[in-house]
């Protein structure tokens, strides 16, 4: 997902008896669905895990602006251009809300950005794939935003107040993103043969990476279990992935597009779609930095940040000058 494989700093899940009195009291509050607020007592591991998770999520929003931004200048109609600009702008806003939520835990945005640029904190694997045609923009809205919404709706109920509130805001704004993506694809699929082929090609390239977004099966992951206990991960990766496949297949059928998985089939017994094996080797390579666009994405972010340094510095310098002048005049 936008925050994949978040490290909780735990090597195994502690037994209840091993917890300190404070930790037990904290867990009791979580179990009672009490929201944790920034100034409340919290275990250090909870705080650090949340900083990691929220900033991964924030970085994903910000890096995620780039593949779509790649088509703003080439959007094929003025309406599509306006919609895409507004959508990518929303993503900047989502990154901003999330950075602010993480900041309540005692980190700073600059420090988080530094972590991103130095490769110490990841962003979602999905944004390391290229947007090659206009159909990719529709497909990102449909598949990637669809997967994101699926993950973010449960997070509106997560245990940390600022994160939950940011998610509520994000979900409210996000609802148009998936629709605009599907709308692009509907238009392409009803269009010329060339347009329809463009849509199919995009689905062929994005399908598997979108399934990887949910992360590897977490049945045996200590981190997932700990995060679930803390209620900062509400559903398992496989659960979400299954829901996503079940929801998406009929949408693809409506578009008349073929999902590139020969093993995809309805399983009446389970009441779910069965689907093929995900190539987790590819996923881990992309996370390690070997995806088609990892280098470009980070290089673009670093350049933007460095090019903007003089602007940020000057604004602070001006504010200081002005404050000094006002003090003098008073």
């Amino acid at each position: 997902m936008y925050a994949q494989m978040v490290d909780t700093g735990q090597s195994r899940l502690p037994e209840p008896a091993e917890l300190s009195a404070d930790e037990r009291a904290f867990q009791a509050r979580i179990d009672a669905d009490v929201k944790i607020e920034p100034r409340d007592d919290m275990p250090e591991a909870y705080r650090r895990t949340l900083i990691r998770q929220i900033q991964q999520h924030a970085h994903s929003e910000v890096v995620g602006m780039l593949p779509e931004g790649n088509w703003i200048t080439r959007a094929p109609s003025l309406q599509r251009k306006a919609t895409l600009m507004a959508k990518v702008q929303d993503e900047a806003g989502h990154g901003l809300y999330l950075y602010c939520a993480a900041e309540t835990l005692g980190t700073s945005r600059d420090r988080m950005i530094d972590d991103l640029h130095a490769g110490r904190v990841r962003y979602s694997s999905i944004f390391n794939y290229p947007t090659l045609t206009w159909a990719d923009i529709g497909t990102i809205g449909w598949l990637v935003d669809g997967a994101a919404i699926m993950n973010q709706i449960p997070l509106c109920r997560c245990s940390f107040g600022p994160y939950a509130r940011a998610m509520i805001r994000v979900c409210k704004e996000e609802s148009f993103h998936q629709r605009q993506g599907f709308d692009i694809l509907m238009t392409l699929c009803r269009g010329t043969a060339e347009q329809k082929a463009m849509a199919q090609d995009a689905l062929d390239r994005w399908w598997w990476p979108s399934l990887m977004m949910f992360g590897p099966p977490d049945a045996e992951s200590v981190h997932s279990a700990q995060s679930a206990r803390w209620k900062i991960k509400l559903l398992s990766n496989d659960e979400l992935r299954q829901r996503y496949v079940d929801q998406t297949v009929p949408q693809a059928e409506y578009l008349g597009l073929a999902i590139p998985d020969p093993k995809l089939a309805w399983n009446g017994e389970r009441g779910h779609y069965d689907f093929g094996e995900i190539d987790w080797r590819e996923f881990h390579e992309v996370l390690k930095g070997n995806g088609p666009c990892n280098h470009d994405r980070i290089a673009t972010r670093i350049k933007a940040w460095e090019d903007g340094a003089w602007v940020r510095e000057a604004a602070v310098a001006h504010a200081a000058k002005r404050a000094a002048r006002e003090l003098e005049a008073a």
Partner: protein
Amino acid sequence: MSAGTEWPLWEVFIRSQHGLAHRHVGSLHAPDAAMAIRNARDVYTRRNEGVSIWVARSADLHASSPDERDALFDPAQDKVYRHPTFFPMPDEVKHL
């Protein structure tokens, strides 16, 4: 990372309609108050969410401490006579 040039954090309060109180909606970074208001307009009112904006530096907000929660708020719990439902009224008496 250039230390010391990070823009300060501001808390943003928006009045969504005339007659309602300003409500905390989130935070943002800005070098000064004027820009904080402008940024708040662009970040938090893109979908007609507001008719008025307040901003305050996060550092200037003073908050009650979670440790004092019981001392501050528990005493109000047993003062039920502050609520009108504490005083049952006969059905035939109107406008009370």
